[in-house]
């Protein structure tokens, strides 16, 4: 499965090491026109797994991948550098992709350096995302730590688009400092709108920070929950997810009602290479979102 070439249409710096890039799909080319410019990439219009079939598409029509669901990921490819698995930080768009990338290595550094007009190869979407339907009619607690808020943002968008489908919804966001709170202005909007409860907490406060200080688990006892009708979605450092899950299980939430997004070394993204294998699971295919009931025994194996 080869990448489809998308064009960067916007690159927004979220913080020093984190960028949100918006990618537009290629346009259907007419007879005699050429498609992709960079070598090794799929030519526009070639049907492949995960790519929308060209069918009777008119020349000029968007020819991208199938829509990505909240919690799924794409393999983003920077020519000459490599590929990295990146979750969607927005979904439900008409063809466009939005990914928030933290610069933590060679590929992500290259992705963070992309500017409008640059080309990014995309394979996907891959994996199982958040099971939002399970939460309909239930209360929902969404917990994001650091860059872990990015894959949860489409969940919040989905909730806000059909707010009456859900009971009480709380979003708890943790970051190292106020300056490192992802999507800060959007968080402020959500907090002001009060459609959902928004709690932010930082563990390295600056002098002008008057909000909560500590880690996300500090905020959990402050939430009134009805454990029998609560669904939880968590993404962040693995230790954080473990403590969040244990805290809520202690309060009576069922392990199968807690969903966590695990990060491993995804390479082929189609369950073939085994790099992301955890026991009998390939996280690229069976995850990255798993219930805590499934994830806990996997994470108890320290060598994994």
């Amino acid at each position, binding site marked *: 499965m080869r990448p489809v070439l998308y064009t960067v249409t916007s690159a927004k710096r979220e913080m020093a090491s984190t960028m949100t890039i918006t990618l537009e799909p290629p346009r259907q080319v007419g007879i005699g026109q050429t498609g992709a410019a960079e070598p090794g990439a799929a030519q526009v219009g070639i049907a492949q797994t995960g790519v929308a079939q060209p069918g009777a598409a008119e020349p000029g029509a968007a020819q991208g991948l199938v829509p990505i669901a909240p919690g799924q990921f794409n393999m983003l490819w920077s020519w000459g550098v490599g590929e990295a698995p990146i979750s969607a930080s927005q979904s439900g768009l008409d063809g466009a992709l939005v990914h928030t990338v933290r610069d933590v290595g060679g590929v992500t550094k290259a992705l963070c350096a992309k500017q409008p007009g640059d080309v990014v190869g995309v394979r996907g979407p891959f994996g199982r995302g958040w099971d939002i339907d399970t939460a309909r009619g239930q209360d929902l607690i969404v917990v994001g730590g650091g860059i872990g808020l990015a894959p949860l943002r489409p969940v919040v968008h989905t909730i806000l688009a059909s707010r009456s489908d859900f009971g009480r919804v709380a979003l708890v966001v943790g970051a190292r400092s106020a300056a490192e709170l992802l999507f800060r202005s959007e968080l402020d909007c959500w907090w002001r709108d009060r459609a959902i409860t928004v709690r932010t907490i930082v*563990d390295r406060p600056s002098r002008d920070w008057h909000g909560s200080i*500590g880690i996300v*688990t500090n905020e959990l006892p402050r939430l009134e929950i009805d454990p029998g009708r609560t669904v939880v979605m968590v993404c962040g450092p693995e230790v954080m997810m473990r403590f969040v899950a244990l805290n809520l299980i202690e309060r009576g939430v069922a392990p199968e009602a807690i969903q966590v997004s695990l990060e491993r070394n995804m390479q082929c993204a189609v369950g073939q290479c085994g790099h992301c294998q955890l026991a009998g699971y390939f996280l690229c295919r069976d995850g990255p979102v798993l219930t805590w009931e499934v994830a806990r025994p996997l994470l108890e194996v320290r060598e994994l």
Partner: protein
Amino acid sequence: MRPITMPEELAHHRFFEKFPDELRRRLAECSNNVIFEKGVTVCTEGTPARSFFAIRTGRVSVGVHVPSRGLVSLETLHRGDIMGWSWVLPPYRWHFDAIALEQVRAIELHADCILPYLEEDPAAGFRLMTSVATIMEERIDSARMRLLDLFGESDD
């Protein structure tokens, strides 16, 4: 509408809500409501700690005074939180400063009244102390997690 009694106020606070009625009644006899306006000092490091506070509304910043930096906040306590355990152990002095970030309504519980009762009734004493220990455990866990600097740059 009759005014809410102190045992009822305690029953509405998550720290005390699962306590036996008799323990809540006795604690209520050692309690009174207090209000701290925004910016008011709740306690000062090194001064006698003869009470603790169950926060009903508002937020309290707990910190330490650092020369040339002023009060450095370490933790923010909210509605439903307990502030203070220095009253439990000698030398009964506050270890940190605390100020009200906004108007704070709290229940103040007085150690001079509570400790003799706990000595008389070890079962009640055990119940209250295990609850205080649970709060201590939560705060120590939180401090340890913060030492991990989970959101910092990876050393890999």
